[in-house]
């Protein structure tokens, strides 16, 4: 036991001896190892590259350099907590853990430490209720708006009615995959379709029985909430049973370049997305010039331009713009995490901002407010073109059915507030 104590002392001294500099710190809780590394690596690269670009091109955000200390979580919640504790002391402004499980751990901790969390397109959906979740943001879209957006797309395809249709939800059997069930249940009741729930256990390699079931049920549509290898396996299984790909729709985490198959196997597969795809944006010229050419690209630089890289880029842009808003709001360039939170709450993303950062049309216009931390939930539908080997937007950015989602958000967030004795803020 004594040896442990010695090790502890050594650890404590290591943990304390981290230098503090006047920088804007955006920790990246990434996962470049483990079963979901294929998804975590491009996002982490995009996140890091955007801040490198800001440092190289603009000298940081309004004259203050940024830094992105990385900490490897392996998509593991215990390691996520360790990473949070290890990095929060360095002046961390905002956390983006890229894992619904880690987000759940950090929501109470970060709120207590006055550090905001931004979960773009993942995490706990009901944090959109800013009156209860003061420090957590999930703009511009979340799982429930995504689910509703997909159903809206199907409604439009079917002339406004899904009566009598059968829809299977194939989901990762975790907090992440379970999130849309409540919304889809309500939507099923409203639009009169039958919902079949089909969970797939971590990591998702084993899906034979689920697809056997799909073969038997013959659903009109299959929706997928998958991540990592689960997506590729599902697409392969769908191709094997000749399931019509255009009736197979994934959430944004199931619509990446890694997921679709070689050849024409997944031609026609659709996925929701809350940002544009491809690299046809001015920001990419700058990344090429200031980051890639100078040999500063994160990772091995091979992910530039992929769907998930775009997502990391977009998440970084939202964080950077929030910091800029906070700097203006508090009239100081050297902001703290509390000021950052105010900046996120006052964030306005419109076409002018998107054009300024070199991403015109990359994502929807929206604004955040005290009571609404989730934005409007605009999302688009993209489709995989197996011939051209690229994703194409087939249905533009549209708002979801907030009549269904708003009461669900209210109910879930109020249940959280009651469990944890939180008095909602006045907004």
């Amino acid at each position: 036991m004594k040896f442990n104590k010695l090790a502890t002392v050594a650890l404590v001294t290591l943990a304390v001896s981290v230098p503090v500099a006047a920088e804007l710190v955006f920790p990246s809780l990434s996962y470049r190892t483990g079963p979901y590394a294929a998804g975590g690596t491009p996002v982490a690269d995009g996140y890091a590259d955007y801040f490198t670009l800001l440092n190289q091109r603009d000298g940081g955000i309004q004259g203050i350099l940024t830094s992105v200390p990385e900490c490897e979580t392996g998509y593991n919640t215990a390691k996520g907590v360790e990473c949070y504790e290890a990095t929060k002391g360095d002046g961390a402004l905002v956390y983006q853990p890229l894992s619904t499980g880690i987000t759940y751990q950090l929501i109470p901790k970060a709120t207590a430490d006055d550090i905001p969390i931004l979960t773009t397109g993942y995490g706990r959906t009901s944090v959109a209720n800013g009156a209860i979740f003061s420090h957590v943001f999930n703009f511009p879209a979340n799982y429930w708006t995504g689910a509703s957006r997909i159903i809206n797309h199907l409604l439009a395809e079917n002339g406004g009615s899904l009566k009598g249709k059968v829809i299977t939800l194939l989901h990762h059997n975790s907090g992440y995959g379970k999130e849309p069930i409540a919304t889809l249940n309500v939507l099923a009741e409203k639009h009169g379709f039958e919902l079949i729930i089909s969970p797939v256990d971590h990591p998702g390699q084993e899906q034979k029985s689920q697809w056997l079931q799909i073969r038997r049920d013959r659903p009109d549509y299959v929706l997928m909430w998958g991540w990592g290898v689960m997506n590729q396996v599902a697409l392969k299984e769908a191709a094997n049973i000749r399931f019509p790909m255009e009736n197979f729709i994934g959430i944004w985490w199931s619509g990446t370049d890694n997921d679709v198959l070689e050849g024409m196997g997944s031609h026609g597969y659709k996925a929701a997305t809350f940002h544009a795809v491809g690299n046809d944006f001015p920001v990419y010229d700058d990344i090429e010039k200031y980051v890639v050419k100078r040999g500063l690209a994160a990772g091995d630089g091979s992910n530039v331009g992929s769907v998930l890289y775009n997502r990391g880029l977009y998440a970084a842009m939202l964080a950077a713009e929030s910091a800029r808003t906070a700097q203006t709001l508090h009239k100081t360039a050297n902001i703290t995490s509390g000021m950052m939170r105010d900046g996120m709450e006052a964030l306005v993303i419109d076409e002018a901002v998107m054009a300024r950062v070199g991403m015109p049309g990359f994502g929807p216009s929206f604004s955040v407010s005290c009571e609404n931390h989730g934005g409007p939930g605009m999302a688009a539908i993209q489709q995989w073109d197996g011939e051209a080997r690229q994703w194409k937007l087939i249905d533009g950015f549209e708002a979801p059915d907030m009549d269904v989602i708003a009461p669900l958000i209210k109910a879930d967030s109020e249940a959280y507030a009651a469990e944890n004795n939180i008095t909602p803020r006045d907004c």
Partner: protein
Amino acid sequence: MFYRESGDFKKTYQTDSQTFPIKFDRWRYYFVMLVAFIVIPMFLTDYSANAVMIPFLVWAIAALGLNILVGYCGQLSLGTGGFMAVGAYATYKLMTSFPGMDMVSVILLSGLITAVVGTLFGLPSLRIKGFYLAVATLAAQFFLVWLLNKVPWFYNYSASGQISAPQREMFGVIITGPYATPVAAYLFCLVFAVGLAWMTRNLTRGRMGRSWMAIRDMDIAAEIIGVNPLAAKLSAFAVSSFLIGISGALLFSVYLGAAEVTEAFSINVSFAVLFMVIIGGLGSIFGSFVGAGFMVLMPVLLKNVLVGGLGWPTDLAAHFEFIIVGGLILIFLILEPHGLAQMARVLKEKLRLWPFPH
């Protein structure tokens, strides 16, 4: 030099049969207690508490629990993760259903609930042995995780199936939830760890522990000399699950604060705890603590050295962690198959004779 045993005579039976009969050991034990209860709390930071000390204590309790079953009673179990999940979910249900209940009762009750579940899953051990029992307990692991994930009542019908621990206080000090100070959370876990280690030590020295060890060494012989295998095996399952349940309860309520059953209590947890027991030393209380320390502290230490100290990329460091920890496990097991506790035992015997080895 270290052990000066001459003149250390025992005049009563009580002093002769105490836990640490050698004076030096006793003082060392008091010293460790002093460090654990007084010195460490003075230096605790958020990081050293939440990333190092609290996980160490929580996993040490789990290892202690599994050590009773595997090390003392010889029943191989792979259901640790499932039993920890039962403890965690019992805590969650108790905390949310009875907000007024104090945390010690919540944790102890969760342990008792897990003990009942563990005893149920221990029933097959009367018929099946060895690897076959391992498979039966593996079924417990998968069944319990599946059940807790499947039935929404266990997670109060929350949208994602995640459970999160509300804030609770004891004597006016917050011990769970985000506002808990590291010292309070650490001391809360420490009291449980020390109390349970003390209980286990005394159980294993008594009639119950001796019957476990008799079953472990040769069950037929034990039966012939009058040990009831039903009582011995089931009591081992019950006590072991009690400890593992408490560890799961602390893991959820004090350490992580939120948990998801498929992730926090997966089969990996069962293996990790089994490794702790094997590396630390089967049938040793001290071994449970060192084993947990090795498995919990080594990756954190390596991470801090490789990333913080040497500035390696995080993914490379994470892969090297696996290689180094895995390599060390192999080296330890080759050099000392009976675990780190046996190394300590050998060292102690050497020190007792030192500097005159004859």
